[in-house]
């Protein structure tokens, strides 16, 4: 956005379906509900939403089907192939579509039965499909799932910087504490470092079971429009200060042919998003750092510059990322505990944080009244949160970031 659009567009509506492991319905049905919830949240009628965008991995329903279900008639739609880090990128593209006059208001959605249908972890239909192209260098060796695809990066990082499994586990502990104050979360139970260490290994030395996110059935929606259009809508607009969409490392899918492989895309994305947004690290009150696995969160904290390279292990064990800490991360519980949505729920959570209306166990959260008591089953609103940052992860080589302000 080169800075000139900073603050001129905003998120005005958010919507979700239940986070479940067995939705019992189609991605079309869930997508329609999530978009409808976001429209109601924003106070928008079908004729007001004239743009649709979505991302998928062959596991969703096209915009042109769901437009019928809600009586929408987009002047612009785009369903693209995508995954983690697409959320922020699509918000940026929605801003561009509106600025370019293609439409006025865009509903971005992601809908997937990631547990009950096409499993995001690679079991079932994905593992049973034929092997062609670049997969010929990976899948014949039993390398297929995301936790494996990224593991060479993190094993090497553990060697270079001396990270331990116990340190990683602190990320899960923090996010589980946050989830215990989130009625929507799939896994609300608080866990300890010992719980993580005692859960079974998935990939040594990178991930125990509790270091991995939760395959989830869910749909989500974010509605983007101009600050001008937002003036007479229902919610306090949350302004988009800057977006960087899917920046990459040298080599892309084959990044491990270059060094250092322990570096991730945030190294390139970070300086650009801070520059475009015109804010500094210390201005940020709350982060949404993608937690497909605990190690993706740690790697990104380092390369986005929240600490020095190699000091992520100190950052995640310091208490900074906990509710009540200096800059809490993934206050909903994120992918590790609320549910896996390819990044959408982390942006939705930060919109709620900046509105001041986190949907926790405080009785009057809808009025923005919070106790700021972060013990189990209580509050998860960050006091006076003004600026948030999301860091989406696609692969070690692909990342997006977005900074928002209330």
């Amino acid at each position, binding site marked *: 956005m080169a800075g000139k659009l900073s603050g001129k567009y905003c998120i005005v509506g958010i919507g979700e379906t239940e986070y479940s492991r067995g939705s019992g319905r189609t991605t079309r049905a869930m997508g329609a509900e999530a978009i409808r919830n976001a429209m109601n949240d924003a106070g928008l009628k079908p004729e007001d939403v004239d743009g649709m965008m979505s991302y998928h991995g062959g596991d969703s329903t096209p915009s042109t089907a769901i437009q019928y279900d809600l009586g929408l008639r987009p002047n612009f739609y785009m369903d693209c192939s995508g995954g983690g880090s697409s959320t922020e990128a699509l918000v940026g593209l929605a801003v561009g579509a509106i600025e370019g006059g293609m439409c006025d208001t865009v509903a971005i959605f992601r809908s997937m039965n990631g547990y009950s249908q096409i499993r995001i972890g690679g079991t079932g239909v994905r593992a049973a499909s*034929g092997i062609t192209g670049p997969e010929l260098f990976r899948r014949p060796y039993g390398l297929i799932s995301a936790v494996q695809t990224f593991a060479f990066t993190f*094993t090497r990082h553990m060697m270079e910087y001396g990270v331990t499994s116990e340190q990683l586990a602190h990320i899960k502990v923090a996010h589980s504490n946050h989830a215990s104050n989130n009625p929507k979360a799939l896994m609300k139970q608080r866990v300890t470092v010992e719980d993580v260490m005692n859960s079974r*290994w998935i990939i040594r030395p990178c991930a125990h079971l509790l270091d991995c996110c939760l395959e989830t059935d869910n749909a989500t929606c974010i509605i983007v429009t101009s600050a001008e259009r937002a003036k007479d809508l229902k919610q306090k607009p949350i302004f988009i200060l800057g977006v960087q969409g899917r920046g990459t490392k040298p080599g892309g899918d084959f990044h491990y042919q270059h060094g250092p492989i322990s570096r991730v895309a945030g190294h390139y994305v970070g300086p650009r998003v801070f520059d475009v947004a015109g804010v500094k690290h210390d201005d940020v009150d709350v982060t949404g750092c993608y937690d497909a696995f605990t190690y993706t969160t740690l790697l990104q904290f380092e390369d986005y510059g929240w600490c020095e390279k190699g000091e992520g292990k100190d950052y995640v064990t310091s208490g900074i990322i906990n509710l009540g800490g200096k800059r809490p991360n993934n206050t909903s519980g994120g992918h590790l505990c609320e549910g896996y949505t390819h990044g959408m729920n982390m942006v939705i959570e930060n919109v709620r944080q900046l509105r001041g209306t986190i949907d926790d166990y405080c009785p009057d959260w809808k009025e923005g009244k919070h106790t700021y008591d972060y013990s189990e089953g209580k509050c998860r609103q960050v006091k006076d949160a003004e600026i948030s940052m999301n860091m989406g992860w696609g692969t070690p080589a692909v990342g997006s970031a977005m900074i928002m302000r209330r």
Partner: protein
Amino acid sequence: MPVYEYRGQSINISENDSEYLGYFEAAREHRLVVKKCLDCGLLRGEPGPGCPWCTSLGWEWHEVSGKGTIYSYQIVAHTVVPAFRDWAPFPIVLVELDEQSGQPNPGDGLRLTANLLDGNMEPENEENVAIGRRVEVVYMDGEDGFTLPQFKLSNEPPRDQVWRYQT
């Protein structure tokens, strides 16, 4: 090449696969090859159509020694592929070949994914899997004509520090 079956997976290398067909044809003859740029002469570990350093689209297959070093690794304790369950826990290694190591830029290398196997072509014992250990290529020949390049530990002493995570 026809469609092959390997550990319950269907391997489909089409006749027009200009990236990978020649690699697996060479593997069947027990030769390990990478692509070499006809213009700048640099090798590349991923057999893509263009040269990452000079954009040239001209290339030829180039045989390499098959010797290298473990650059990174993972031990698969839980696999999502049913036909690999009898192997778990098993190692997958990222091997850096000796050729062109650290060239043309520091940190660059020709890197291949493989299983680390023992003398019986079974998964190597986890305690022996470590970054820095020396390895060499071996070939796993299937009955239907599909050959998969794999690696095993070599007798050479390590050239650098050896590291594995102590769980």
